[in-house]
């Protein structure tokens, strides 16, 4: 077939979207310049003084820079892993449910916590984990001492990660389920005829069928390696767990209370974007080179 004649149609299809992106995303990016300014409200873009990399230096100068970066990456990394694996396992299991109505209900229900704000959810979590809460009552029944979980640097990151999974796993589940419906039934029929066990079918039919989706979501979420979830941590942390829970975003927020820090905030955004872009390009190249696989 001759794809050559299709080219202009392809350009034409892309045209409206590209124009909108240029106007509403690309042009405003001139504002990234703020990252290199000591931006003062009032002075605006044109008159704020240029300070080079000062805003970036600030990030590495702050008290406990090291622990803040560690906390950010630590929490974000485990969130990424858990938010891929758990929805994947859940979607594969749910796919085995034959009773359609039940399946639909479960699928809808697990998506709902996504709509709860952290303001409400953090209240529930604080209640559950409080000294008089369900978890501590259970511990006491088992003869253990009650623990002030949210005041403990040992437990705090774990609580943050697991409650995030609780809230968000329905989202990726939907994507995986949509991908699962795309696997054609003849493949399963063939496997049945070969007498494959359930696990064998998962391994040889289901997983290969949704590998592109898994790889895609994994790659895209690598971009979040510096996003540990501001709203959540802001609503759950306290000075006792700064050590294990203070992340870049909460720190920058507190800087901003003193003085609106558009420059610093833009610098942080830029740093995150650059790192995300680099990681995504690397994974794209690696997948291409070693597995001859194109992620997108």
């Amino acid at each position: 077939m001759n794809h050559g004649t299709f080219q202009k149609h392809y350009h034409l299809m892309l045209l409206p979207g590209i124009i909108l992106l240029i106007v509403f995303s690309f042009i405003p990016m001139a504002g990234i310049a703020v990252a290199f300014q000591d931006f003062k409200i009032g002075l605006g873009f044109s008159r704020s003084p240029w300070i080079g990399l000062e805003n970036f230096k600030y990030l590495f100068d702050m008290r406990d820079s090291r622990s803040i970066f560690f906390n950010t990456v630590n929490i974000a990394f485990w969130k990424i892993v858990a938010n891929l694996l758990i929805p994947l396992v859940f979607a594969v299991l749910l796919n085995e449910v034959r009773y359609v109505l039940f399946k639909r209900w479960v699928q809808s229900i697990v998506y709902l916590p996504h709509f709860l704000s952290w303001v409400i959810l953090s209240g529930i979590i604080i209640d559950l984990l409080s000294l008089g809460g369900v978890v501590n009552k259970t511990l006491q029944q088992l003869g253990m001492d009650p623990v002030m979980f949210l005041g403990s640097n040992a437990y705090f990151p774990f609580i943050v990660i697991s409650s995030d999974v609780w809230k968000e796993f329905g989202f990726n589940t939907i994507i995986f389920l949509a991908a699962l419906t795309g696997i054609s039934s003849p493949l399963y029929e063939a496997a049945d005829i070969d007498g494959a066990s359930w696990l064998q079918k998962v391994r040889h039919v289901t997983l290969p069928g949704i590998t592109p989706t898994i790889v895609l979501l994994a790659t895209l979420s690598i971009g979040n390696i510096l996003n540990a979830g501001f709203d959540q941590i802001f609503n759950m942390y306290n000075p006792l767990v700064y050590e294990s829970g203070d992340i870049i975003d909460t720190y920058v927020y507190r800087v901003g209370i003193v003085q609106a820090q558009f420059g610093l905030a833009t610098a942080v955004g830029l740093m995150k974007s650059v790192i995300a872009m680099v990681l995504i390009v690397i994974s794209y190249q690696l997948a291409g080179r070693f597995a001859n696989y194109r992620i997108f």
Partner: protein
Amino acid sequence: MNIRKIVGVVLIASVVFAGCSSNKSNNSTTADGEPSPGQQSTESVQVDRFRMPEPVEINVIKSVYPGMTFKEGDTIEKNEYTRYVFDKTNIQTKVLWYASNTDYDQKMQLSIASNDIPDMMVVNYKTFRAMAAADQLEDLTKVYEQYVSPEIRKFYESTDNKVLEMSTYGGKLLALPSVGIQADAPSMLWIRQDWLNKLGLQPPKNIEELKTVLRAFIDKDPDGNGKPDTVGLTGNSTTLSAEVNGLHDFKGIFNAFNSYPLYWVQDESGNTVYGSTTPGTKQALGTLREMYAEGLIDKEFALRKNPDELIAAGKSGTMFGPWWTPWVLTGSVKNDKNADWQAYMIADEKGKINISSLPAAQSYVVVKKGYKHPEAAVVYANMYDEVSHTPDEAGKKLIVGDALWPLQLITDYPEAATNKHLLLLDALAGKIEPDKLDGEMKLVYEQALRDKENPRANPDDWAAPQAYLVGAGVLKQEMNKIEPVYFGTTPTMERRWANLLKLENETFFKIVMGSLDVDAFDKFVEDWKAEGGNTILNEIGEELKK
């Protein structure tokens, strides 16, 4: 082709940004066009202080309360308030945008950052200084002298003209300040009088008595449900001592040790010090630590996002808060009709009640540079001051402080809340006609009457009178008032403050909760000084010398 596209886009982008910055140059040219006030000597020209000779238009931005409704046919631009303003002063209002007060600050910051500002607006100290430094504000020095009414002058003078000093930048008066109402500064102990009565206790006057009361509140089952389920004093997860208007903090205890965390104050020898680093603060932390260890403070205070729950559920009968705390206590009153909340100040060991005062000015009416009629701001202020204190018949129907006024500024004595307290007492005692009250106080008066008839039946009728009668009443007594020396932000603070505050909060919380020794405080003071504190103190010293 794509390179060209990108170049084109960059060109467009530069036009966009040039377009937004060119506004400024337009403005500065119009500024030159105004008649120079220097030509008219202030004394010789008689001006009408309450009315513009010709109709003028100002555009403003407005903060309203959520879900505000208008009378039939009225809008945010055309209503009884804007009509009144126009009738009195010839000033016509246009509203550039409006938002509820929850969103207003954010939206305003964005507006200013994008240089999209109205002719006049009300801003806080930080924004005022930023705009002044950026030369965005019109000089009001001359029009102030020429137009200001004797009444406003009198109120400003009652602060030793400190409010005018705070509104001056580079030798020019760049704003009309609102007088800071000092009532918001003191932190008082709100306590369940019904619990005290039940246990036969006297209201606590100092820390030792407070401890005794707290012990009894925890051990002696004040709520009478037979369960040891009451906790002591409430705290919150953000700060141990809020700068202003703190709820559920320990500011009252710090003050009782002559300690003023977060404030820049003078020590005995007259040097400027940071309040969180003084010996008094160490003592206060030590006491809080003991109280916490003894269980007199809510065990989980550092984790609570919402300590109100303890109050509303009747689990705690003590909290620190400002005079208006009753609005926070409505849940408690609703759930338990017996909940009788009273307020007391906690004194230091010598029996003195220490408080720190607030900045003399609390907000600033500013005029955009280049606006043709800066005197309209003063004319408006004169009118607003008049309607606040000596309203005419039409003015009496309006409520001072209503969100619909185009601009709001408080011109009053710093003790206004206490004055309102006295006014309300007089009205309730029949000493003055209720009709003499302005709209706001009349509302409170009617609520007070209803609440008297049927005590605590409707928490919303209870809250306002309780705040004015009890909360503001407490402030009448003799108090040792500490004047902080500095309220601004120095350059080093902009860069280092978040660092230092983190150090402070982390250390203080850990000391109180027992995971650090009290002596960790000394290490904190050292670190604080080394990590920028000393530089900041020097900078403040420089500024104070000016």
